[in-house]
């Protein structure tokens, strides 16, 4: 099990060469090897959405993918939503404006799911938003504030 597999991935625009253990998930590699801890670990069986990242533009539970499966892929994590200078995206700003982030633990996954939605539907309807975020649990239950935020960001035009 100690053998590793060499993979090349682009994470938040930066190409990385990694030696990943074949049994390690994308979540393991993102958090433990690349040290991008914004992506959260909760259920590790694809039920809660806390670990959502984009793989080639598609929202995925990173706990359900092996790292070796993403060889050659582009990964976007929550850290990639922010400009290199730390400036927030319109979506992130909207989450703050509506008070959507409470304890905050699910928020990275919510933002990444919402980001994917807006890539496909720049001005999503509330129904589309609630459907797109249905796989991301929030126990603070800030669902309405999140939906409002995504709606608001859609109207304003996400950068």
């Amino acid at each position: 099990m100690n053998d590793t597999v060499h993979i090349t991935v682009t994470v938040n625009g930066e190409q990385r060469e990694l030696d990943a253990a074949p049994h390690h998930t994308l979540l393991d590699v993102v958090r433990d090897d690349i040290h991008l801890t914004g992506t959260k670990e909760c259920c590790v069986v694809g039920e809660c959405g806390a670990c959502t990242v984009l793989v080639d533009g598609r929202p995925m539970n990173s706990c359900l993918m092996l790292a070796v499966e993403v060889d050659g892929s582009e990964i976007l994590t929550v850290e990639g939503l922010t400009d290199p200078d730390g400036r927030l995206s319109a979506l992130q700003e909207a989450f703050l404006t509506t008070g959507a982030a409470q304890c905050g633990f699910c928020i990275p996954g919510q933002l990444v799911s919402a980001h994917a939605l807006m890539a496909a539907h720049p001005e999503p309807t509330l129904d589309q938003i609630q459907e797109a975020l249905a796989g991301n649990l929030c126990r603070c239950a800030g669902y309405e504030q999140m939906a409002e935020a995504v709606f608001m960001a859609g109207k304003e035009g996400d950068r």
Partner: protein
Amino acid sequence: MTTGSVGTSQPRFGGYGRVTGRQRYLADIHLEDALHVKLVTVPSARARIISIDASAAKEIPGVRLVMTAADLPDPMPRHGPQYQDRPVIAVDEVKYHGEPVAAVAAETKEAAEEAARVVEVAYEELPAIVTVADALAPDADLVQERSIRRPGSLIDSNVLCEYNFGWGDVDAAEADVVVEGSYAWPAQTHFAIEPHGFMAAADEDGIVVWSTIQHPYQLQKTIAQVLDWPLAKVRVIAPDPGGGFGGKQHPKLEPLIAFMAVKAGRPMRLVLTLDETFMAVRRASAEIQVRMGFKRDGTLVFQDFANDFLVGAYGDTGDRITAKASWLSAGPYRTPSVRIRARAILTHTTPTHPYRGFGIPHVGWARESCLTEAAAALEMDPLEIRLKNLARKGEEHVPGDTPADGEWEQTVRKAADEIGWGTPTPPGRGRGLAIGVKSGPTTGLSYSIVRLLVDGSVLVFSGTSDMGQGARTIFAQIAADELGVPIDQVSVVMGDTAIVPFDQQTSASRSSVLMGNAVLFACRDIQAQVRGIAARSHDLDESEIVVDRGTVQLPDSRLAIVDVVKAGLGKLGGELIGTGEMRKDAVPEHPLGGTASFFEFNCTAVELEVDEKTGSITIDRHVTVGDVGLALNPIQVKGQDDGAAIMGLGHALMEHIIRDDSGRVRNVGAIDYRIPTSLDLPLELESFMIENADGPGPYGVKGISEGSLLVTAPAIAGAVTDAVGVVIRDLPMSPERVWRAMREHS
């Protein structure tokens, strides 16, 4: 000159970190050289441990320590917030499914997991007690051996404690109509999205323990007790929890990790899986029998409660939840005679932990459901029967406790108006309404230190945990206004017992009131110092100077506090340090040890429809109204209220822990234990606040955060009855349960 931030929706402190992924939760902290810990359990709710063989586990490369009861002091150190009965690790007998019997520490997570699987535990499964009836059977085995029970008449029973509260004479009360029912509330789990996590590192200077805990100072005390070390040698670092809801209040596995860190001389890291979190913490279940007597006109004559809370294998907070919730069984109503018999019952289940609402949803479910049934029996309107008996401001609803502390009728009428009570209900729909009331903290002690620095910026130190309620933001708002500085010049420091002064706990919606006052008093302490500085600088008597909300009023001019301080501190600079203490003292003769510092008062009203083919409930409109005193930060109040309402929907409609006959938990995880998603929301959800600035906190604030889930279930059940005629007395109101009830009804 005041910044006027109190009462406005200031952006959340910590918001930037939360939307960028930069917020550091416990699991995001990397401890150099830490060993990874994995727990060893047996698949049984009750088992006699015969032997534990760790030899194969120790052979796994990277394994550094396997800890069992044999490696701990004898007698086994025990701990707990009320009863010191929980062992650091199971000794002799496993008393609930998931109780750890051993723990492995290894260089990697994989090695720890692999080794945990090969620790050989020989055990004999014993019959587990998992229901109230089993626990109270005359020949029932005792869940706890005598040696860990408190002395007293209950020691040879599974009743942990029994309370008898009341006033008047229920048996002598003359009622025209008596209504009664039995209501059940199932066990549920908190399901914070952040699983619990713990780390510890010990050296010759003491020990540092990191935890997702809500009460860092209780953890410090517990670790000091079990290790027998001075408090000053125990430092607790408590990063903002990723949701708590009560489940992270008290220590659980931290003592084990602490002993392991000391023994191995290496830091330890244990982050539970979600499955392990399900086993580690839960909410009490309860069976409640109610009898209510009324005059023909709906006037309450008596209320009679028998409350059995099923609390698990160790005391934890089961006693306190049973007592505090039961004390308010009769709710916010004037009742001449009340009798309450409440018991906490030990079983072979996960110890009961506090959970948002602290037992009030259980008693509220019973009382408000019975009241709705009584309205039907009396042919009265469910709103009218409540308003008729509702205590008005200043009236005692529980003799000897704090009287009604708000314009409660205003709250109820607002909810009724917002749901359209009294207007024709659309075809196929039903409406329901219920009233909840919960005591705030009965005792409390919070300290704060506020430092006004030479450049006019401010540091606020507080032992409160910010777990989503937004405590940091409101403390900053208070300090900004009191000291007259822009809020972006304020930093709030929390979560480290080596830095922040003592706070009793973050619970019972207390922090705005108790810590809020401590912060306010610390700012006032600075204001008093500023007055002295201004007097010296301007050659005035202090009595000629008024310092208030950021300004220094001199006889002929008005200055900003910050300008007076900058001038007064002179060339060397320095700072002003204010301290604040907020104490809510105990009342020894009070059955709860103290009166309510305030009440969280809520009225919830819903309009819904029931799919007659499937039993599925659709909430068309859900209204909650809370008496908040004053909203320090309206958007945060709304977030807490909406969130609690949706959590309440989960409890009412979908959530329950399922155990098999042997006491094993069968539905761990998000698919088998459903919590609300974005697709489970009411079609309309609105939270309203009543603000009369009549609370005991800063500027008249009362605690919030729990109100909106206190009576969600009985409001929904009442609406189901209104819609389709069936009466539901068990939860959750799953489609199957509602469908079966409709079938029996027809």
